[in-house]
């Protein structure tokens, strides 16, 4: 199994989740209110209040094939709006 970690602006959450569901991931978990810094932007806590929104951290445990299905869609969203996506190994308990 693979673990996919996505971090991006909360405002893109719907687009990302739609992409994940289109690829029929078995499930996902969303942690909101993340802050951070990337090559493009700094996201601090007060962003939430200005309406810009903080970051969301999405975790997906799924098979490699699912990741392959989701890759292009996610990449195009992240490259346009910013954000990162990483894959690592995981085994079910």
């Amino acid at each position, binding site marked *: 199994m693979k673990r996919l970690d996505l971090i991006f*602006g909360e*405002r893109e959450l719907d687009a990302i989740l739609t992409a994940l569901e289109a690829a029929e991931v078995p499930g996902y978990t969303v942690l909101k*209110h993340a802050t951070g810094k990337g090559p493009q*932007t*700094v996201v*601090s*806590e*007060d*962003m*939430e*209040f*200005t*309406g*810009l*929104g*903080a970051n969301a951290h999405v975790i997906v445990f799924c098979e490699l094939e699912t990741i392959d299905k989701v890759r292009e869609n996610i990449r*195009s*969203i992240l490259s*346009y*709006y*910013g954000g990162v996506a990483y894959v690592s190994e995981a085994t079910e308990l």
Partner: protein
Amino acid sequence: METNLILQNVLTPPVLFFFLGIVAVVVRSDLEIPAPLPKLFSLYLLLAIGFKGGLALEKSGFGGQVFPTLIAAILMSLLIPLVCFVILRLKLDVFNSAAIAAAYGSISAVTFITAESFLESQNIPFDGFMVAALALMESPAIIVGLLLVKLGAPKNRPNIQEMKWRSILHESMLNGSVYLLLGSLVIGFLTAAHNPVGVDKMQPFTGKLFYGAECFFLLDMGIVAAQRLPSLKKAGSFLIIFAVLIPLLNACLGIFVAKALLLGPGNSLLFAILCASASYLAVPAAMRMTVPEAKSSYYISTTLGLTFPFNIVIGIPLYMGLVNKLIPSIG
């Protein structure tokens, strides 16, 4: 005399708490108002402003100065972003210019209520229907900003976010804070018309509590504004100068129009403040979605880090001084 007004303004609780927030950041106190508490206060303020505005509008009706003022307000929020855009294009690209222009064309509700508090502490009357002007000035500037992008942007913008009219209207009209303000306005209006008992029962919440909640919120705004200052430096001196001079220019425009509309001194100040203030709630949310090419640090830092404090502390009494010179008090 303006110095006197500035001092009187500075010595009111809202402005003092605003300073307390700024100083907290400057002296590196660990005072913080954690999320989502600021959101609670901003939701509350929008709801209360809208509701009270609706009550007032129902009382005043749409006759007299009301209709012309509202039309003038909308026109100003179409004109101001165009002026700003021309100036900003001297130094910035289309995306950033349009986004900042939209912010300055739109309004800041907190600046508006601080101006109202100032008028109350000076015993200068003003009309509740000005809130309707506030509500109407939020969206048009966003539309102008997005149109400027549509017209001025290079042809090869990635089509992931091809801007459709629908989404432009959606972002400008249905943004959470615009929606809550307008919705509460309508509710206030309907309640005043049909349910006087409801008006009385809302009063402790939307009326009495307002001033204290405003102070609490301004404490947070002071913290947030001061935290923005460092990234203002990065934005460069052009934007810093812009963020202080443009509100002055827009306020003068506003006072000029207010005079033409024969508004009294109180309403004139509010009109000036609507023109002079810049949005950091509705516009950033809309721009983030539709013009991600624009640097959010630019339109947040200028509006929130400089224009907002400037208006709160110096702008309000300064514009009042101008109003006093140009517009004869009716009383």
